[in-house]
């Protein structure tokens, strides 16, 4: 029997512990309803140029070697403004990307990429991975930026059932300046848009993964009370009334590490949005206001 060659397993690269969460309660709630967050123009110009040079030298669809480049790790993967948001949503010790996808498109290009969700999408009230896009060049509408459907992470679908979709009310463009980073729920619906200009559109796509149980360790929002906060969002027109508020509230509860206390009672109970005379029934016991009751000054 021949002996198998020794296998080297690289340790998981994690986000530096010095990068602290930045979204507060309201920011996390907003992400739960929208499913994405755009951080415009935060990567330095010299890093954008170096990235484009790297991609020109490595035209393959998965140039994962760039993840080993120190300059890329520091200024893109761990770019503070984006990384703090990612840290908020994925908790401490999150894993840095281990796979890089390059979506290079030569403009002009009349065809859209077609609406889709990426393979492996799961429709659970959890946030285990964030899919992130990075534009190293200015990406106006003419260069065919990715379009997203806000809130669509709350609208269950199947990749094969979306291929005939065209224009959708509420879709948004991620047209953005060079150095922009877009943080998305993995299962958010997206597509490349037609490019009417000329040139190359680089788009790098990669994922960060959760390694810790969820918990509400982000900054609080003074006066924020989950019992009265509105969980409504842009997915509202696409299903039964209040479906999107219920789904976003469940996701928020999960992120708070309190999903075991979540139970949608139904009727007009929490989290159905309304201007009530008193707090609604059905609020999970683990969802407390901020600052916690009794800690007010």
């Amino acid at each position, binding site marked *: 029997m021949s002996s198998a060659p020794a296998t080297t397993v690289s340790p998981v690269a994690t986000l530096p512990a010095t990068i602290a969460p930045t979204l507060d309660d309201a920011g996390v709630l907003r992400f739960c309803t929208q499913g994405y967050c755009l951080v415009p123009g935060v990567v330095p110009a010299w890093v954008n140029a170096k990235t484009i040079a790297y991609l020109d030298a490595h035209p393959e669809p998965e140039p994962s070697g760039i993840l080993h480049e120190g300059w890329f790790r520091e200024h893109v993967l761990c770019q503070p403004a984006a990384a703090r948001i990612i840290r908020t949503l994925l908790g401490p010790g999150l894993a840095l990307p281990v796979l890089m996808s390059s979506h290079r498109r030569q403009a002009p290009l009349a065809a859209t990429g077609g609406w889709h969700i990426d393979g492996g999408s799961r429709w659970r009230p959890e946030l285990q991975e964030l899919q992130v896009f990075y534009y190293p060049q200015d990406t106006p509408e003419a260069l065919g930026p990715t379009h997203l459907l806000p809130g669509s992470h709350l609208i269950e679908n199947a990749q094969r059932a979306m291929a005939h979709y065209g224009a959708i009310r509420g879709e948004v463009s991620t047209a953005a300046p060079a150095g922009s980073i877009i943080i998305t729920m993995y299962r958010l619906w997206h597509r490349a848009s037609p490019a009417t200009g000329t040139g190359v559109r680089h788009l790098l796509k990669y994922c960060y993964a959760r390694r810790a149980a969820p918990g509400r360790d982000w900054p609080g929002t003074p006066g924020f009370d989950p019992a009265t906060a509105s969980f409504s969002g842009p997915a509202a027109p696409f299903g*039964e009334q209040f479906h*999107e508020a219920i789904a976003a509230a469940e996701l928020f509860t999960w992120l708070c590490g309190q999903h075991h206390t979540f139970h949608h009672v139904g009727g007009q109970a929490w989290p159905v949005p309304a201007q009530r005379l008193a707090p609604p029934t059905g609020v999970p016991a683990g969802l407390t206001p901020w600052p916690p009751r009794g800690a007010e000054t």
Partner: protein
Amino acid sequence: MSPATTATATPPTALAVQLRAARARLAAGTLTDADLAAIEAQAGPMRQDLLFLQASSTHPGSGALGMALVIDGVMQEPPWDGAWPYQNVLEALQDGWRVISFPNLALLTTSPGAKGLGCEFILERWRPA
């Protein structure tokens, strides 16, 4: 029901309209070869156009959430940030489209959550190839 009542209850086809016009021109002595060619085109091969319209409810007057078309065998769509040709199914019907698929009610009533892009109507329109 009288034959006359039956005739008025069914909208005339484009071919029928052209035949009536041709009869009138024949009676007037103005029928031309171009008139006959137009009729011949109507009687020849036809091409199906499709309109996928996803609406917010099963009511044909409910607002369109999504739209895509197949025109002359090519997928098309209205501008994502501009005006759409129809705001709902009723407007498409008034423009000559015919519903060939109604939203599947079984799929809509089995779960309180959102699945897919609204209530999908599929409409067709036939035109000379």
